[in-house]
């Protein structure tokens, strides 16, 4: 090797293509720990940042790497302890890159062959040159602007480069959006939902606990309100509400009001909500016996209507149940009556309505209105509806298998505050635990949104294919999110250095390698809506026309 090769090309003529900026060369490394690059003296170390992409040209393939650490090194310890006179600019310049040089530690994440990208199973040889990855390279890895890819954001310091998610892979397994409060989970989720809608990747059922997805969400930014899905996608989205009054006062154009009849609630539904109802195991077992005893559909209504000690005592005796258990159960279940959407008998069949929409491929957003922080309402409704819809999807898939016909469309169910449904205590029994575990078998997956991933059952977390996580500060949460991910030690550092807003680390099924993005803008400009295919005036006209057609049942 010539000294020139060691020092990198000198100032004047570098024959390399002008689009690739050379950074240095490989001087050390291992497959397990990554590569050390010696920075060329012409490259200021401060121009290289953690998280940046670097391409190393091996002899047989290119290695696509991410910068994980930067270090200062000297060739001779004496230079560090007894440095030459660096106040002299010539000496200072000469030392840079020779006696004293920067070392960039990179982790190879993909090898780029001529046709496709593959996992990393080897390392490039000594002195392989390393370059800043170009926009084209990055876009080749993360997909192009087509029907199967959703632009989610840009790499840090590369505003004009697009990182995209593979939509079929995103929706075919459950995915999760995590991050502490105020980091941009809701905005990210909105982008995912809008993208799935725009590209028709799946039909969605969105449990909108905080009323921010269907119609007008709030933003802390300069624009205080952002458009919801219904506003962007018109008749392709239906807004259901649990609280007509609240929706009306927010001037939301709702499509249906959800009502639940006491006669529709099964012991399993109550079991799903046991925690929210404050029921212990004995009480849950009593419910099952109660139902068998009172029978029919009206068992819950009858039980709640019972009044007076004596009635309950009699019932307890006939069931050979402890009287205390029964009266406590009675007291707890009475809480259901405070939920206005629960009536002795529902006027409409909300489940059927919901299925009608979903089966026509229309995304449904269910607003919770005043129940935005009512755990019981959230858990009960989400479980009840999902259990019935899931059952329908399971039937349809099995039927399609038997008849070799087209299976139902992929369904994505979005759950905010997912830990309420998927905590280690609940995950074993609720429908959501089941959906998460069954994975893609029945074409139903979850999009869970949570600020405390450590509160989610670890088995469920491990089934989440794609994780999109904003800043997390609690160590437990960080460990929970990264558990089982290769290279998690490096990712931990990356995660801790995210900015507190609009930046996220994405890894898993829908991306070929972990990536940090500045999330695409939502709502700050008209263009941000237009990029989802939204056209102000034209959209309204088209929507009206489509609405009319829908009304006519065409």
């Amino acid at each position, binding site marked *: 090797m010539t000294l020139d090769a060691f020092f990198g090309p000198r100032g004047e003529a570098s024959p390399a293509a002008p689009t690739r900026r050379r950074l240095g060369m490989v001087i050390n490394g291992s497959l397990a720990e990554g590569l050390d690059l010696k920075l060329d003296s012409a490259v200021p170390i401060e121009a290289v940042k953690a998280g940046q992409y670097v391409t190393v040209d091996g002899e047989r393939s290119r290695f696509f790497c991410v910068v994980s650490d930067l270090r200062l090194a000297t060739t001779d310890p004496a230079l560090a302890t007894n440095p030459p006179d660096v106040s002299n600019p010539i000496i200072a310049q000469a030392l840079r890159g020779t*006696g004293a040089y920067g070392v960039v530690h990179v982790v190879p994440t993909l090898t780029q062959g001529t046709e496709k990208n593959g996992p990393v199973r080897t390392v490039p040889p000594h002195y392989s040159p390393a370059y800043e990855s170009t926009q084209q390279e990055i876009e080749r890895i993360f997909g192009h602007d087509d029907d199967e890819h959703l632009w989610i954001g840009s790499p840090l310091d590369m505003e004009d480069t697009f990182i995209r998610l593979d939509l079929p892979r995103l929706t075919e397994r459950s995915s999760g959006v995590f991050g502490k409060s105020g980091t941009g989970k809701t905005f990210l989720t909105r982008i995912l939902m809008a993208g799935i809608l725009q590209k028709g990747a799946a039909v969605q059922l969105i449990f909108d606990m905080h009323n921010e997805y269907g119609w007008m969400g709030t933003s802390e930014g300069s624009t205080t309100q952002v458009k919801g899905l219904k506003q962007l996608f018109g008749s392709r989205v239906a807004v259901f509400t649990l609280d007509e009054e609240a929706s009306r006062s927010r001037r939301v154009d709702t499509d249906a009001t959800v009502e639940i009849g006491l006669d529709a609630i099964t012991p399993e539904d109550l079991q799903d909500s046991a925690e929210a109802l404050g029921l212990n195991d004995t009480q849950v077992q009593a419910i099952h016996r109660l139902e068998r005893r009172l029978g029919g559909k009206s068992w819950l209504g009858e039980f709640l209507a019972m009044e007076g000690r004596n009635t309950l005592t009699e019932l307890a005796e006939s069931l050979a149940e402890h009287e205390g258990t029964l009266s406590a159960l009675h007291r707890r279940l009475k809480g259901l009556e405070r939920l206005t959407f629960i009536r002795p008998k529902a006027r409409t069949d909300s489940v059927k309505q919901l299925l009608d929409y979903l089966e026509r491929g229309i995304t449904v957003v269910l607003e919770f209105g005043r129940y935005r922080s009512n755990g019981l309402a959230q858990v009960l409704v989400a479980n009840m509806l999902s259990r019935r819809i899931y059952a329908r999807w399971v039937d349809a898939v099995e039927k399609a298998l038997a008849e070799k016909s087209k299976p139902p469309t992929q369904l994505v169910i979005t759950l905010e505050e997912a830990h309420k449904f998927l905590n280690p205590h609940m995950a074993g029994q609720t429908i959501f635990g089941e959906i998460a575990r069954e994975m893609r078998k029945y074409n139903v997956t979850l999009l869970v949104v949570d600020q405390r991933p450590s509160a989610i059952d670890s088995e469920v977390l491990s089934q989440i294919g794609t994780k999109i996580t904003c800043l997390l500060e609690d160590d437990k949460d960080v460990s929970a999110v990264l558990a089982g991910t290769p290279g998690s030690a490096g990712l931990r550092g990356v995660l801790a250095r995210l900015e507190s807003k609009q930046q996220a680390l994405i890894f898993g099924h829908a991306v070929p390698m972990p990536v940090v993005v500045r999330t695409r803008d939502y709502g700050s400009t008209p263009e941000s809506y237009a990029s989802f295919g939204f056209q102000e005036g034209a959209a309204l006209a088209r929507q009206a026309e489509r609405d009319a057609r829908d009304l006519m049942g065409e």
Partner: protein
Amino acid sequence: MTLSNGTVPDESQKLGEIIEASTVQVVAQSYELNVAPPFGSLVRMPHGPPRTSGAVYGVVTCIETTALDASRRPMARGQDADSRQAVFEQHPQLTELFRTHFTIHVLGYAMGDGIHHALPPLPPEIHQFVYTCTREQVGTFTASPGYLPLLLAATGPAGDEAVSTFLRGASAVRSPSDAESYLVAAAKQLIVLLRGDATRLNTLLGRLA
């Protein structure tokens, strides 16, 4: 580098003649007493068949003036004279009793195909002339830093003085901006070549700039 057939560039001066030669080191005698190429400068000695552009290059690492007859010790003579010149006027034979010699360490050679920063296959020949180099010749010889290992090895009695003088001289034949990048590049090589000898490196770097 090619020299136009046998001719010597204008500013190049013929100052001496080789009287002792090896592939590493040459001793030349000056034609004129007290006249020699400057310490630390690049010199050129034609080499190879006549009328080719071949030459050996070297750096002047020592200049000395001694009595021709080493067995006879010169005596002080100027006690009653007004100046050194007066001494020589009174004793004209003195010019013949002394000779100026200079030592050259070889840094490379030129053959038809250009400059080689390496020792020549054969030493320069006895009685070959020694010329000073033109600015252009210095610039060409030092265009790439390959001469540095031989230069660092060419330590005469004055140690690294010749090295730093040579490098300063080579930078002086360049434009100011080129001079700086030349010194930086040379310093970079020194840092690599003198790895493990921080004292020598620090001294040299200190003299460079």
